[in-house]
């Protein structure tokens, strides 16, 4: 197996962490050893009963390990004061657990209060955090949890976990109880927040798709939390370590890989495009010069408007903004290739139009872009694996290479 954790400073290190419950023949967690690099999201994923939540709760010692050690920032926390320890580790659970008799502000300000911050500092921090998770402080500060929607509660839960700006966060299926559409949005929002705050996060889920989406690295656990594979999502999807991992990823690994690449990371193709206010003769010439059968018309602010063919241009009597087909299948740069592919198959011309945040035309993504992105990912992982194999083989050269 490849050792993916070659990052210089692991923020969290689990050393042969074991949990044995009295009266049970086999340990619930059997000596897991794992390095979690600083500023990354590491997802523990596995079938139910594999002990992933137990591993998580041993990090903040809601469950006391039977043996082994947890190091956070190089410090052994297995002997530290558990309550004090937890005040410096953000914790988000599936049920969220907002205190119903406290306002949003009281919930979010709870940990700072436990740390005896001054009132004004707490109030400022609460507002800052609500802003961060996209809730207007003036509107939501004094609400009670029951006056919030499920998605808003989840955001408050995240804000609360970030309360005292802990370097480490533990998240136990945080988006598990939320409808798929809201979940998708919250996941994206959370990734945006993480890009700013750069916490070291251990994230537990049973959903491999969520793991692929959220994780910088994924540890796939089998029973008793034995690590089946610990690697980047790309590597796991491209080169599953064994049959267990393959089964767990399930069908469609190639399609899942498309979730890993964003439109902004691939080279865009250029399609002949022109303003809808150009005169028709020029548009016809433009179309004739290109290899494509149609032209993309843009409005005065460069936003995609219509697809038109030579035949559409010939219909002189109709204004240009009414001929041809509407320019659908529009994606923004932060969309994944999976999203783009989805749009592509519904599009009339077989490609997705990429626009910037203001909706201005940037280029297009077609099937060729998608295939080459997959190829590149595959060869990247192969190249890396080869480099690792060579590095491992190097010291043993004298002994190993006989013939």
């Amino acid at each position, binding site marked *: 197996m490849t050792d993916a954790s070659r990052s210089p400073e692991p923020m969290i290190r689990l050393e042969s962490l074991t949990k044995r419950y009295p009266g049970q023949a086999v340990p619930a967690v059997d000596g897991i050893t794992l390095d979690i690099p600083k500023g990354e999201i590491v997802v523990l994923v596995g079938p139910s009963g594999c002990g992933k939540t137990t591993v998580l709760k041993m990090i903040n010692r809601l469950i006391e390990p039977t043996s082994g050690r947890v190091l956070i920032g190089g410090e052994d926390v297995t002997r530290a004061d558990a309550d004090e320890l937890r005040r410096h580790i953000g914790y988000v659970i599936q049920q*969220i657990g907002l205190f119903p008799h406290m306002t949003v502000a009281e919930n979010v300000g709870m940990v700072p209060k436990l740390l005896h911050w001054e009132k004004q500092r707490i109030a400022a921090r609460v507002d800052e955090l609500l802003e961060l998770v996209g809730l207007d402080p003036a509107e939501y500060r004094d609400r009670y949890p029951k*006056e919030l929607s499920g998605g808003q509660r989840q955001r408050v839960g995240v804000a609360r976990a970030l309360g005292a700006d802990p370097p480490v966060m533990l998240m136990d299926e945080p988006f598990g109880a939320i409808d798929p559409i809201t979940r998708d949005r919250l996941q994206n929002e959370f990734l945006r927040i993480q890009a700013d705050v750069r916490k070291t996060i251990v994230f537990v889920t049973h959903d491999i798709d969520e793991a692929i989406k959220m994780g910088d690295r994924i540890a796939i656990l089998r029973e008793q939390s034995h690590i089946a594979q610990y690697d980047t999502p790309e590597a796991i999807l491209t080169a599953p370590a064994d049959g267990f991992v393959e089964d767990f990823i399930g069908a469609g690994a190639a399609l899942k890989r498309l979730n890993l690449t964003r439109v902004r990371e691939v080279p865009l193709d250029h399609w002949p495009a022109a303003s809808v206010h150009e005169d028709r003769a020029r548009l016809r010439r433009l179309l004739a010069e290109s290899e494509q059968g149609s032209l993309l018309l843009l409005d005065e602010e460069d936003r995609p408007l219509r697809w038109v063919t030579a035949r559409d241009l010939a219909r002189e009597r109709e204004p240009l903004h009414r001929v041809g087909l509407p320019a659908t299948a529009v994606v923004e740069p932060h969309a994944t290739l999976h999203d783009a592919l989805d749009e592509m198959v519904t599009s009339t011309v077989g490609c997705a139009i990429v626009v910037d945040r203001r909706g201005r035309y940037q280029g297009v993504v077609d099937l060729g872009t998608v295939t080459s992105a997959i190829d590149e990912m595959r060869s990247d992982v192969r190249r890396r694996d080869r480099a690792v194999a060579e590095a491992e083989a190097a010291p043993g050269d004298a002994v190993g290479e006989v013939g």
Partner: protein
Amino acid sequence: MTAPTVDRGGDVAGAGDALAAEELVEELGGPSPLWRWVGTPVVLAGVCAALYVYVQGQDLDRIEEAALNAPMIRQRVLEHLELTAVSTFFVIVIAVPLGMLVTRPATRRLAPAVLAVANVGQSIPSIGILVLLAVVVGIGFEQAITALVLYAVLPVLRNTMVGLDQVDRSLIEAGRGMGMTARQVLLRIELPLAVPVMLAGIRTALVINVGTAALATFIGAGGLGWIINQGNIHDRTPVLVTGSVLTAVVALALDWIAGIVEDLLRPKGT
């Protein structure tokens, strides 16, 4: 007189019933909170006025006058209130901490034993406890209080336990997970959220105590039971009626106060 029905073995005294009744009343478009707050005292004042008019209209003999004069009635009402207040105070002081104790993980296994004792206290008829105490330790105020406390501990104990147990486990996990100590979780999360159920138990205990205090006269502790008993042994209807009606009025008035306290102490946001 009010006769609170307390399920001896099983259910939470009061809590479920009170909630269900409130919901039912609301559904039927019954009295608004304002009317509940104002209506009861108006009705009770009316009853007292009617009682006064009735007694004034009677031609009282010496025996009746001995029982039905202002200083005597005031004394008996105060005795009754004292019996009720002191016994309820001790019920709370005993049952609430006990309920907290037997819901802590470390001492949870004591719960069945504690409940068994409290159940015995309630199962013996109150008059039985009173007489038993009188025989064993004599008569008087303290004995009456002891009997009342024994009799009313169960609803408060049980409701404290249920109130604390019904707090969502995920809230406790969230609290511990963010670094609250077990004590902080109890004081800031569990207790505030258990308050409505606990108060329902205390209200039940209060009503039980008002009723049972009427029996305290049999071991020489006075109270409104004395007036009722006078009416009974001398066969004087006005005395009997006055004692009974006043007992009912005191019971309803205390229940009304307890209801207001419940409304005021219900945690916000729930």
